[in-house]
Each structure stands twice: as structure tokens, then as C-alpha cells.
């Protein structure tokens, strides 16, 4: 077998094994409920949080953006880990005690407004779609890499594969075993990295530290200073990006709903810590791929021009493995890890988005008398429509994987994060404030692409990937002002907040 058929073989093996393990788990679960994998303690909960989080952006995009932009790329590492601190201290236990599982449900209940719920559902679906575009780009790149075909073909085949996976796993009722997924993704990312470090002669046992010497070699042999702070970008841009990704983490619908899979608030809190640790393991490793990639390219005399670098950035991890001459099966393992991360993120997001269409929009708003069957049909149709929409955008992706993902984070940070923050920590926030806040948030997110040409000042304050540094505080101010100017929310909700959400120990 040649290298690419090895990759295909390993990838297929991994995907098949997930279905088989899922089926086995399903038959066992009927006898010993809860043992097979739904919940296995704080560490298991943490692995589930991490696997839910791991996507093409973490496994491909992160290395790509650091390869391209050096120190500026670290804003992604910090944004995507530091957001969990915000999430833990400000929201995790409170939203669990609030007891609403999805973002639209929380918004509808807290602000007592079907209109707010509808807008929140549309925003949550928009976030999922943007997030999925980035994943589809990742899947398309891996498919075109494995089968040696063009990107457009790759992304189309990838979309077909995801939809058929959803159909098969839906028909078989395969549960997602997220602990197993995390383990596979983590091993598939770190083992090739260790191999790489060893092959290049660096400290391979902990390549996360070993790449330091590669960085020194890069600057000594080729005078490439990878670490120069704020070289091409300003301090404001760094901080804006970092802050946006942090508040976006605190507002991502599929991350917020994770706190319901553990049995109590204390375990929910501790599983966030484990989740963060598991995420950090990957995020400490990603820069190493970027540095090794730059070093190997420099050694092979490949010129680093902005255009070529941008074209290869998203596949730099795979390219590095190939350039170093890693065995084919190991490149396959790396591809399988990245592909399963992207695959399951897409599957989860499409399903959540579709159920939101069916439940929050169709059933709650369009046709409250809809039967179970027709709601099911709407959900299935919704999956296909969302997948088609994502595919359409992904055929001509507007940026790097990490950049597209950042836009989803900006939207979440500008809309959902303030909504949850004030909804939980300020009893006076009401439906008018919530609706005004969501509209302001959406405007802040699209300010640069839509109005940047007319008002150039907007471009510097609301850059499309980093609009939440100015956007989120603005939205919070709008929410406060509008809430104070309009009637207070019902006393019942304020009592619920005080007694159930915050006063559980008084």
C-alpha cells in the first residue's frame, strides 16, 4: 500500500470503530445503564467536554495560524483556553441550576419572550453554520489530501460522508462515546508529533517542550524570528482577538449545554477543570507542528511567501509529517485524528441546529400543533438544508479555518455571552434589553464586512474576527440601558433567580 491508501485505510478504520463501539455500548447500556460511557466521573466528563470542543480549528487551524503569524497566532491558544475560566467562574454552575438545556430555551425562559427565543435560535443556528463551514474546509482539505483530488471535490465528498454518517448513526441509534473520541483524537495528534520530534533530533518525550530548540535552530540557521511580538499586528489587534475568542467560548451554544451531562453542580465544575487540561494538552502541542513545519520548509529551501504560506497553512500539520518522511500509516493516524474531530463536531452541530429549527422555530413558533412525526421530518429536512448551506459556503471558503471559526466566536461573544451574563447576574435585565442587545451584537459582528466601506473607522474597532472587545461591552451597555428604560421583568423570575440560581445555600 502506498502512503495515501494507508491514510484512507486508517481513517476508515477509526470511523468504523466509533460506530462499532457505539453499537456495543448501546446494547450494554440497556442492561447496565450508565456504566458503558455516558458518565464516568469528573475525568470522563472532562474528556467529554474536550472532545466536544476539539474540532478542525484545534487540530489543523491552530497550527496553521501560528505557522503563518507566529506570536500573533498565540492569541488563539490563549483565547480558546482562557475562555473556560470565564465560563467556569461566571456561568457554569448558575446555568446548570437554572435548568434549561439549550440557548434558545434559556433565553425564552429567562426573558419570558417567544420573540427573544426565536432570535436566539436563529443566532445559535447561524453560529453553528459558520462553525461548520470551518469544519467543512478542514474535512475538504483532508479528503483532497488523502485522495489526491481538488479541494471542491474533496469538500463535496466530505459533505456526503458526514451526511451518510448522520443517517447511518441515526438509523442505528449509535450513541456518541466522547471519552473514546477524545482519547483517539489526542493520541492521533500527539504520537505523530513525538515521532516527528524524534526524527528531527529534538527532545521527543515531551515535544511540547522539545520544540524550543527547533525555534532556536530556526533563528540561528535561517534568521527567521518566529516569536517577535506584535510584529505585523498591533497590541489592540492581539488583545481584541484574544478577548473575542474568550467571550465567544463563554457563549458557544454547544459548549454551554455540556454542563447537563454530569449529575451535579460540583462535578460539573470539576469536569471543566479536567476538560481544560485535556484541551491544553492539544494546545501546547499545536505550536510545535508550526515550528517544525517552518524549519523543515526552510531546510528544504521552500520559500515562505505570504501567498504560498496562506495556501498551505491549514494543512501544515499533515505537510510537516509528509516532509519529515513519517511512515504512511502514521500520517494516516494524524489525518484520522483531525478528520474525526471535524467530523463529530459537524455531526453534533448539524443535529443541534436541526433540532433547534424543528423545536425552537417550527414547533414553538410556526406550528404549535405539529405532531411528533412532522417535527421529526422538519428536523431531518433541516439537517439536509443546513448541510447544503454549509457546503455552499465551504466550496469557496472566506478564510483560514481558525479565522472562520473566530467569526463564529465573535458572533457568540457579541450576542449569547452578554445575554447569559446579564440574565444570570442581573435580575433587572428584561426581554426588551435582550432583544436590543442581540440586534446590537449582530450589528457589531457584521460591522466590518457590511459597513466597513462606508465608515472606515468601524474596521479598526470591530474587525470581523475580533469584534467582541468593543462589541460585548457595547451590547452589555445597550442591554442595561434598554432594560432600565422599560418595565422590570416579572417578580416571579427575579425570585427564581435569587432563590434557586443564587440562593441555593441560604
Amino acid at each position: 500500500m502506498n502512503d495515501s491508501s494507508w491514510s484512507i485505510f486508517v481513517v476508515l478504520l477509526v470511523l468504523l470503530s466509533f460506530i462499532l463501539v457505539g453499537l456495543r455500548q448501546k446494547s450494554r447500556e440497556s442492561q447496565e445503564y450508565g456504566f458503558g460511557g455516558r458518565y464516568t466521573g469528573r475525568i470522563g466528563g472532562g474528556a467529554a467536554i474536550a472532545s466536544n470542543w476539539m474540532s478542525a480549528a484545534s487540530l489543523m487551524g491552530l497550527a496553521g495560524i501560528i505557522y503563518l503569524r507566529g506570536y500573533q497566532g498565540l492569541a488563539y491558544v490563549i483565547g480558546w483556553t482562557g475562555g473556560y475560566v470565564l465560563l467556569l467562574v461566571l456561568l457554569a454552575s448558575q446555568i446548570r441550576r437554572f435548568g434549561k438545556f439549550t440557548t434558545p430555551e434559556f433565553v425564552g425562559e429567562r426573558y419570558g419572550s417567544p420573540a427573544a427565543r426565536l432570535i436566539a435560535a436563529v443566532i445559535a443556528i447561524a453560529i453553528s453554520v459558520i462553525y461548520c463551514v470551518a469544519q467543512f474546509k478542514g474535512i475538504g482539505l483532508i479528503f483532497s489530501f488523502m485522495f489526491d483530488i481538488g479541494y471542491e471535490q474533496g469538500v463535496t465528498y466530505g459533505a456526503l460522508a458526514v451526511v451518510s454518517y448522520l443517517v447511518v448513526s441515526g438509523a442505528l441509534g449509535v450513541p456518541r462515546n466522547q471519552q473514546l473520541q477524545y482519547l483517539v483524537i489526542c493520541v492521533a495528534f500527539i504520537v505523530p508529533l513525538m515521532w516527528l520530534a524524534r526524527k528531527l533530533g529534538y527532545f521527543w518525550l515531551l515535544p511540547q517542550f522539545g520544540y524550543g530548540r527547533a525555534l532556536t535552530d530556526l533563528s540561528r540557521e535561517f534568521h527567521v524570528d518566529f516569536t517577535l511580538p506584535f510584529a505585523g499586528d498591533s497590541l489592540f489587534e492581539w488583545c481584541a482577538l484574544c478577548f473575542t475568542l474568550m467571550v465567544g467560548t463563554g457563549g458557544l451554544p454547544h459548549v454551554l449545554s455540556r454542563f447537563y451531562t454530569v449529575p451535579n453542580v460540583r462535578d460539573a465544575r470539576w469536569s471543566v477543570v479536567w476538560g481544560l487540561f485535556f484541551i491544553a494538552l492539544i494546545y501546547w502541542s499545536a505550536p510545535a507542528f508550526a515550528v517544525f513545519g517552518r524549519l523543515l520548509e526552510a531546510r528544504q529551501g521552500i520559500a515562505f511567501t505570504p501567498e504560498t504560506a496562506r495556501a498551505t497553512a491549514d494543512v501544515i500539520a499533515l505537510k510537516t509529517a509528509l516532509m519529515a518522511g513519517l511512515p504512511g500509516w502514521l500520517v494516516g493516524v494524524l489525518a484520522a485524528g483531525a478528520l474525526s474531530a471535524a467530523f463529530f463536531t459537524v455531526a453534533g452541530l448539524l443535529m443541534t441546529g436541526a433540532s433547534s429549527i424543528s423545536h425552537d422555530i417550527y414547533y414553538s413558533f410556526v406550528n404549535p400543533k405539529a405532531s411528533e412525526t412532522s417535527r421529526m421530518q422538519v428536523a431531518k429536512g433541516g439537517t439536509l438544508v443546513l448541510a447544503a448551506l454549509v457546503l455552499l459556503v465551504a466550496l469557496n471558503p472566506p478564510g483560514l479555518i481558525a479565522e472562520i471559526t473566530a467569526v463564529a466566536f465573535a458572533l457568540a461573544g457579541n450576542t449569547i455571552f452578554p445575554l447569559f451574563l446579564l440574565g444570570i447576574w442581573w435580575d433587572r435585565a428584561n426581554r426588551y434589553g435582550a432583544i436590543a442587545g442581540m440586534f446590537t451584537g449582530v450589528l457589531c459582528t457584521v460591522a466590518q464586512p457590511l459597513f466597513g466601506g462606508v465608515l472606515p473607522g468601524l474596521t479598526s474597532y470591530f474587525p470581523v474576527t475580533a469584534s467582541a472587545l468593543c462589541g460585548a461591552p457595547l451590547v452589555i451597555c445597550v442591554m442595561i440601558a434598554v432594560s432600565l428604560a422599560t418595565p422590570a421583568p416579572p417578580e416571579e423570575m427575579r425570585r427564581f433567580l435569587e432563590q434557586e440560581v443564587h440562593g441555593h445555600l441560604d
Partner: protein
Amino acid sequence: MSHPEKRHKVNLFRPKEGHMRDEVHIILAILFGWGVCTFGFQFLVYACRGTGAGSLLTRLTLFNLPLHFWFTGQFLPLWFIVLCVIFNIYVDRISEYHSRKRDKSYE
């Protein structure tokens, strides 16, 4: 703020006595540690560019990485984990303290 007599109030900056006040104190302390290390350090690196302190920050190496790169890329994620652990230990402790206090008052 025009209805000071309202019985039910939730406000991050005016927490009510008891568990919530303790919780808000630790939240603000953690957020301080989070903000200062993340953004404060970047300000420091930026402000010290071209000075002796600046070159100290970018030339001094740790694990073969320049100090600022090591701090941002490796130490900060670890620092976030530490912050989360401190928060959880503290909240576990105040939850136990207040639930013991509450149980006694019910007896």
C-alpha cells in the same frame, strides 16, 4: 435602581450576604488574576519594546523559548488551569461552610 424596596435582587456588584457574597469575592479575584496575566503581560511586553526590560522579556529563554513566548504559549494555559482549581477548591469550601450553617439553622 428606582425601586430600592424590591425584595428580590441579584447583582454581581452588589451580592447579598452569605454564600453569594463569598462566591462573588472569589469570582472577582479569579477574574483579576485572569485579566492581569493575560492582558497585563501583553501590555508589559508592548510597553517595554526597545528598552532593556523589553529585550530581557524577549531574549531571556526558558525551555529554549523566549520568555514572552513561553509565558504566553505555555504558562498561561497552565495558569488558567491553576485558576480554575483554586476557584473550585474555594467554592467547594464555602458551599460546605454555608450548607452546614444552613442545616443548623433548620434544626
